[in-house]
């Protein structure tokens, strides 16, 4: 869990994002975001890495299925710009394939987490009272179990594939968005337009999705970017513990931890490229998140 996610819950419900210039049109936010050079740089990095991972293999063909032990750990040079790894895969091509899995899992897990968290949090906050208390205590209980401990257990029971990783990481990550959206919902439910909708007989699910969720969109969007960053680090940690995806599929975390076995052989090209890719992506998502938060005028200590 990143700092953003940790501290996101500390701000209290006294500064809901909706109190910020909520009536400002999207264009103002877009401009505010575009003025934030760091955030734009982060966005550029994410786009570049996504293109690299998904379009790259179309331009740069490598065999990422069959191992070639005769060509293992070749130094970077002609034919292999980043060398080859310990079973002879071209490292640059591997970086692309690994990037695909990394980004797929990260975006997928963030989507699952946001979906679960928004539905749970908005419902709890809208209902209020006992139901809210109970639903939030469930969140507290799950939050008390450190993500990696729960993930180790889940990854041992369910053998990891891309889909399984998405679900497993998403299921451990939805708690912070749930708390945040619940905080928003608590204040939004007393707004005149929500009360008006209720008096007119609009059904609660409609109110929750049409009014509560749409008005919490800033908080949701900001947290989603932090979720992606978190998921990348979590999956890397899981891969390091040997609970990632099995070969020939790979991800940057798995590449980095495999490469670390060869630190003392001096095979720097096995560790630094995937390691730097992870750091770059996570930094980039955090910068985007910070930029979005400023653009939406949310409290600096909230995500």
């Amino acid at each position: 869990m990143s700092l953003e996610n940790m501290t996101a819950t500390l701000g209290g419900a006294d500064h809901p994002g909706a109190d910020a210039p909520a009536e400002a049109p999207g264009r103002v936010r877009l401009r505010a975001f575009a003025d934030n050079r760091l955030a734009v740089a982060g966005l550029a990095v994410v786009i570049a890495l996504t293109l690299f991972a998904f379009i790259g293999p179309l331009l740069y063909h490598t065999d990422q299925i069959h191992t070639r032990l005769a060509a293992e750990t070749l130094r970077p040079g002609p034919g292999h710009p980043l060398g080859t790894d310990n079973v002879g895969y071209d490292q640059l091509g591997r970086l692309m394939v690994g990037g695909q899995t990394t980004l797929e899992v990260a975006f997928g897990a963030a989507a699952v987490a946001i979906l679960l968290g928004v539905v749970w949090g908005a419902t709890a906050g809208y209902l209020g009272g006992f139901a809210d208390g109970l639903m939030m205590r469930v969140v507290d209980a799950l939050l008390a179990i450190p993500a990696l401990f729960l993930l180790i257990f889940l990854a041992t029971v369910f053998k990891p594939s891309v889909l399984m990783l998405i679900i497993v990481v998403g299921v451990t990550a939805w708690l912070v968005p749930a708390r945040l959206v619940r905080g928003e919902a608590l204040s939004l439910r007393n707004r005149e337009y929500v009360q008006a909708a209720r008096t007119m007989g609009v059904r609660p699910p409609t109110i929750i999705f049409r009014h509560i969720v749409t008005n919490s969109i800033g908080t949701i969007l900001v947290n989603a970017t932090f979720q992606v960053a978190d998921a990348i680090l979590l999956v890397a940690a899981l891969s390091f513990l040997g609970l990632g995806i099995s070969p020939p599929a790979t991800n940057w975390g798995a590449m980095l931890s495999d490469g670390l076995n060869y630190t003392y052989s001096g095979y720097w090209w096995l560790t630094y490229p995937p390691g730097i890719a992870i750091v770059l992506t996570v930094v980039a998502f955090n910068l985007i998140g910070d930029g979005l938060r400023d653009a939406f005028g949310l409290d600096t200590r909230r995500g």
Partner: protein
Amino acid sequence: MIRFLARRCSQALVVLLLVSVIIFILLHLLPGGPARAILGTHATPTNVAAFNKENGLDGPLPAQYWHWLTGVLSGNLGFSYVLNQPVSSVLAQRLPKTAFLAGISVVLAVLIAVPVGLYQAVRRARIDDYVVTTVTFVLYSTPAFWVALLLIDVLAVRLHLFPAEAPQGAFSTLFGDPSALVLPVATITLVTIAAYSRYVRSSVLDELAQDYVRMARSKGAGLRVVLLRHVLRNALSPVVTLLGVSLPFILSGTLITEQVFNYPGVGLLIFNAAEQQDYPVMLGVVLVVGAATVVGSLLADIVYAILDPRVRASVNGEAGR
């Protein structure tokens, strides 16, 4: 204060109960049900039936839960057939070591992060703030295991300053060779500082924008006095809650660190248990770590309430939490 305490403690109790329900659900997620998962695939139906009867797993679910919960409360966390000893005694050996490792690292991280964050806030938007911000940003975007292995590479292998393996054996041996603790502690501390200092920075920035700061300054108080006497005091009390909230994050980092340095705490324990599919131990660790986190954040909240009376006064004490 009494009302706050009662409210917060009863909440923590409910959360603890829910943690136990989660563990119980996990127990039933096990492949083939708890009995098969724990006894192994070669268990005969008779074995399974005997195991279920012995562990109260033959009744309806609520009865099973009750049987399991009363067992847990009386210290029976199950038996590890892999380690051939009760889970509770394994945990009793390992838990103090993890608490020790995480404890020192957190204290160090706070001692370093507070001045760093304060300095950054004061030097806001100058070159040194940017440098520190960049370093902390990169640091907390780096996988903890890579930080650990880079530390080993530089400080243990190249410079021979510290051993790359943590002390083994009983709790008391931890103190026998303090230099062996340096790298594990440094890993967790570095990752945690990165997170804390950003929080301290924004917390101090919030305080610096307050009227009382301008008031004190306009009355002629020096920046140093205002910072130390007013700002720091107000900015630090939220840091106490940060400690509570960040416990799960720190324990996840501890798990990785223990694995890298072969430090015999609960993190290494659950990692080894996962390799050997030793489910009773895994569930025991998750339960104990979850309970510790609940108690930790309860303590943090109580300390916060002692430091900051406004927290006690807010009737809706659970707002946003």
